[in-house]
């Protein structure tokens, strides 16, 4: 019965993944692509436990902030699922609540909730609307989106200047959803945008970190693409919800999945452990 259920949810996922591949809605094209290093710590004195390269694609109207490596890993999982012809499956093994690791088996794809960021943040300059797209790290692959209307970020300009990535920057402070942030922005890059949900300064935010030093975004690369790169989002239906509802769902999600298909045998490992991330938004 359990196997059947999983097989069923499988097919759903593969359909979903398929739809994702075929249709993409182009919203804008990239004028500036920025790379930010996101480093995370468990507390101020401990070393950084996770580093990811995030991308901010800025168009004339829309900007998109995402983690290409995580999206790549996860789509590899869904592509693998998509490629399986259900008639070829001779047996299926599901490992749950077990310490099994098949990551070394050739062909294994894995999606781990603790590795990288699954969200994508779209900011629309014209409407001022911020939309977050996200999904849960389980084989069901449920997809969600919510609009995040918050009042204009109340940045405080303070004394202090620094040079980041060869740009002269000014300091600004912000309290946002339970954490205090220090940002460095450059008036020489007249783009009113920044990593994550941050924007609203008269210049691109090149660095931002919270005062407890748990999260830090630093610009490490910036290009003005010569070829046309679309800012696109798949047309797949994302389930509309609120920020609170998604946070509820995320608390319940597992650590992720490893999947391997060879020789008719599907091995699916539901990674053990509880997903307990340190949240940026505390309220």
């Amino acid at each position: 019965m359990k196997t059947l259920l999983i097989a069923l949810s499988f097919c759903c996922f593969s359909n979903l993944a398929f739809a994702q591949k075929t249709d993409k809605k182009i919203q804008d094209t990239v004028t500036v692509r920025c790379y930010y290093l996101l480093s995370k710590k468990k507390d101020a004195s401990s070393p950084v436990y996770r580093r990811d390269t995030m991308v901010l694609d800025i168009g004339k109207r829309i900007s998109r902030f995402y983690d290409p490596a995580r999206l790549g890993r996860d789509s590899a999982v869904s592509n693998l699922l998509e490629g399986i012809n259900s008639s070829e499956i001779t047996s299926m093994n599901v490992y749950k609540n077990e310490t099994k690791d098949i990551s070394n088996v050739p062909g294994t794809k894995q999606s781990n909730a603790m590795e990288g960021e699954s969200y994508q943040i779209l900011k629309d300059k014209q409407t001022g609307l911020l939309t977050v797209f996200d999904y849960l790290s389980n084989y069901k692959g449920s997809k969600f989106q919510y609009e995040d209307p918050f009042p204009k970020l109340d940045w405080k300009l303070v004394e202090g200047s620094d040079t980041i990535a060869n740009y002269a920057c000014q300091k600004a402070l912000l309290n946002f959803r339970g954490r205090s942030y220090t940002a460095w922005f450059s008036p020489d890059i007249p783009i009113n945008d920044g990593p994550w949900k941050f924007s609203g300064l008269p210049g691109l935010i090149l660095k931002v970190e919270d005062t407890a030093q748990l999260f830090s975004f630093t610009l490490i690369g910036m290009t003005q693409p010569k070829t046309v790169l679309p800012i696109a989002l798949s047309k797949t239906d994302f389930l509309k919800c609120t920020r609170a509802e998604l946070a509820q769902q995320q608390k319940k999600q597992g650590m992720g999945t490893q999947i391997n298909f060879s020789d008719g045998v599907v091995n699916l490992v539901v990674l053990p452990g509880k997903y307990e991330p340190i949240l940026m938004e505390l309220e």
Partner: protein
Amino acid sequence: MSWYARLGIGFCLTCSVFLARGQVKISGIVTNKEDGKPMPGLSVTVKAKAGTTMLTYGLTDNKGAYQLTFKTTSDSVLITVSGMSIQKKTLSYPNKTGQQNFDMAYEGIVLKELKVTPPKIRRLNDTLNYAVDQFTGKNDRTIGEVLKKMPGIKVAENGSITYQDKPINKFYIENQDLLEGRYGIATNNIAAKDVETVQVLENHQPIKALKNKEFTDEGALNLKLKDGAKNVWVANAQLGAGLSPLLWNNELLGTYFGKGKQLITTYKGNNTGDDSGADLRNFYGGDRNLPFPVSLGIQSPIEPGLSRKRYLLNQDHAFSLNHLRTLGKDYKLTTNISYLNDRQEKNSYSRTENFLPGDSTLVIEERLKSITRYHHLDGSLKLNANTERFYFENSLNFSGDLQRRENGTVENQQLISQERTAPYFKISNNLSLLRNYKKLTFRINSYNGYGKLNDGLAVQPMLYPLLFSDPGFPIGMDQSLTQRLFISQNSFSFRIKDGKFSQNYLATANASLLKLNSSLQSILENGSLGKQTDSLSNHLNWNRYDFGLAPEYSYLEKKTNISLKLPLSYIRLDRNDLIPNRRTGQERVFFMPSLSANYQLNLLWQFSAYAGYSQNIEGAENGYTGYVMQSYRYLVQNEGKLPERSMQSYRIGFRYNHPIKMVFASFYSTYYRSKMNLLYGNEFQDFLTLRKTLDIPNTANGHSFMLNLDKGFNGLIQKLSLDAGYDNSENTQLNQTSLTRFLNLKYSAGLRVNGKLGEWADFNYGLRYGSTKSILKNDDRDFAPIQSATQSGGINLFPSKEIVIRLRYENGYNSAVTGSGRAMNFADAGIRYRLKKLEFNLEYNNIFNTKRYIAAAYNGIGSYYSSYELRPSQVLMKVRFKIK
């Protein structure tokens, strides 16, 4: 008014002045200079005239309006309006409430590019990705030159690629195997700037249907091209000319890499010592299923262990056409045609010493000259389908020397002329079918081929008159040898996989049918051939049939794989020697078990071990009974008995690779012991060597070690490679009439460094040391070791973007050489200049005009010394340009 009151008023006044200064509100409208329309979304910032910190900021709304409220003590402020693609505008404004409008102009804005440098090597599951741009130097044009700089990847002098000391099993371009093993065509022609990533696919199983069923420990290489290099036709040409003598060097290249179609066509021709045929060599092994057992040869100089460019006296033309297209969803059709025409000249002096029993040594001195001319054609047509479910492949191959002529002279005590003609052709078809049914895999393989070699060697003058009984005074000897060979190899196998265990059963049925006809005749004074005699002729039918059953059991798990093979075969050999009219039939049953194991300790360490036992019975090369003159001084005749050999061999090794730290290390150790029923030896009669066979069982054994270490760096030194080897082999040979047990020892060590001095230079340095030693055990004769060392270094300077200056120096040393030849020096210089789409290359090679290369080493129970004539100094100008 009291003093206090006055003070109070004064204070209030001061305050109000401050207050008046405190809250300033500036507003305005921002419009477009061109059409006066409002501009929304622009940043408006304000700061005190002398200040550095922004006071406040705002954004223009949909009507282009802005409003700034701030406090400052400054007399005036600076208001700045900026936005993407807008010319930034800054105005000074008095520190008071008021209105200020702006009209703005468009302007493209260019930001300071900030490149993200990805790691040089990245691992994704079983794939290592090397970022090509980060390994490419300014002097590197082709991808082959860049491959040499990648840690873990080795490119041999002949162009073959090994990954962690194992030859790669596939070379792909965009995941397609266009070149079928002749990947020199790609590495020596595809531009490095067109390649995004070089991928090493570790433990690569090329047959998708066998993935996770049959383990391989070989790697494959894949070139991922940049988007700009895909789906476009590219044609490049190079013209070159130089002195002395008159030199030419031309190239033409056309490529297309599209989704369902790939094509590379090349032409190369030169007489400057660049071996154009090197591109056409098949590194997958080619058509080795049709070997002619015997071949004749003219005595010609042994090529020195030096870069071929230094000594190759050639005049060659090489053409190749490689085409791949997909047919439908699963099928691919690959066509490869190549043609090579060459004329090679070799000149040398050599001295061969054979250590004879009782402290004596036989010395053969020869001054050799030879010219080889040939036309070689290769063609193959392959249709294949490679899917997870089934595999199909049928390839039809043709290869042959349409013409081959070798002329040469030998001067020892007299002048001997040799002439060989040896045209041959081979045609074969190979069919492979594989299909998976749930846990079962069936595989059928059928190879059928036919080949013919017409070999002929004429030697003048008559050297061995006692062999012939023709009247008069014959002026020479003529050896003719024709071999017709048909081979059929068929196998059927099925595999059962049950979880981690799999069983494979292979049944084979092979036949090899050979007709060998030879005749050694004298050349009479009038030019005609003397009569044939039985003792100097062979008329032989040599048919061998093999039937075998080979069970294989394997255990494949994520960290461990073990495989046990237990092949059992029955061999029937029918020899019909028509001249003595003797028929013999022999039957043998061979059992050749082997066990191999691999263990992956973690992502970094891997261990492997192998043990095996093999048996074989040798072929017609040791079975013909009439004399064959294989070269002017080597006459071979066999007794009736065939050599049979059995061998046990063992190998252990480990590999370590850490892509992030760019460390690649491997170590292997081998041991073998073999037994043979017959003993071979050479008997020297003056300079003539006769091979002798004795019915004495004997053994041979040997062991070796090999250590390799590669490390990549990001600083001054980019790649460092170290290797060390030791080889020990012990053999028995018949030396004149006595049995000789001899030991050969070889030591070798090497070092290679690639580096970079900032943006303006890169360099490389290599050092190679070798030592060989022979010990004749029963004579207790111990010969002084011969030591040799070569050093080479090069530096490329980049004074400007368009110019590359190349300097190269090589030095060789050999302890066995006495006099001036002991140390040899070579130097080359070159300059490359790029002018728009033209690339000029001026080369000056062998500046010291070093004329001879001297080599010496131990060789069996003997040693040889040779002095080989090199290419003289030459100056060459080449122009490379893009046609399309």
